[in-house]
């Protein structure tokens, strides 16, 4: 699992690559910390190269949303594949996030 953080056109963008399983979730939680200082920025979670996400990964996305939303930041999920979109649907997360 690899993550890359970038600022692009005032967006905070994090690129996710590989398997976000429970083994990877502690390190990924750490990697996502810069996104928490998002006042004045919308966030894009780029999942184009994300192959897998377990509930521990979904929890990281939800925790970020719970912090970012009260600050007025939008979170967009970008490039997610059909299988992972179905996982978002099963958990109702599809209604919580915005998709690009």
């Amino acid at each position, binding site marked *: 699992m690899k993550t890359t953080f970038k600022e692009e056109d005032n967006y905070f963008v994090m690129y996710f690559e590989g*398997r976000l*399983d*429970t*083994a*990877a*979730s502690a390190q990924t939680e750490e990697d996502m910390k810069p996104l928490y200082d998002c006042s004045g920025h919308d966030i894009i979670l780029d999942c184009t190269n994300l192959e*897998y996400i*377990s*509930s*521990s990964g*979904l*929890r990281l996305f*939800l*925790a970020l*949303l*719970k912090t970012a*939303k009260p600050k007025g930041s939008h979170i967009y999920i970008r490039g997610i594949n*059909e*299988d*992972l979109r*179905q*996982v978002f649907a*099963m*958990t*109702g997360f599809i*209604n*919580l996030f915005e998709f690009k």
Partner: protein
Amino acid sequence: MQYQRHITLPNDVQATTELGMFVDEVCENVGFDMSTALKLNLAIEEAVVNVMSYAYPAGTKGDVDIDAEATNEQLKFVISDSGTPFDPTTKGEVDTTLSAEERGIGGLGIHLIRQIMDTINYERVDGKNVLTLSKNLTKNL
């Protein structure tokens, strides 16, 4: 068709990557497509992580055994441990219609297992927790 595989993992969530490879191999052997394999991975990981995280007292070592058995009709994963008696099937359903503010962080694992598997059965046998998750082989997801 008769097919059986077994793996024993320590109660360390770092072993979930190895578990993923095991489930992928089983799914490939029974002819599930990659989309179904991904969802089975998710269900089995949730069940096994639950054991790794809660079955044994913090700081003590313990094992979790995973047996995969396939017949012509069904693929069955039997997950067993010698830890504290715990029946995950009694856990309440999460409300997936709630907003982000209302949603709790927990409870997603058992919800996903219920969504993905066809049957879930828990037994306490000879001092072990035995959780059996089955999927009909005719059904790709």
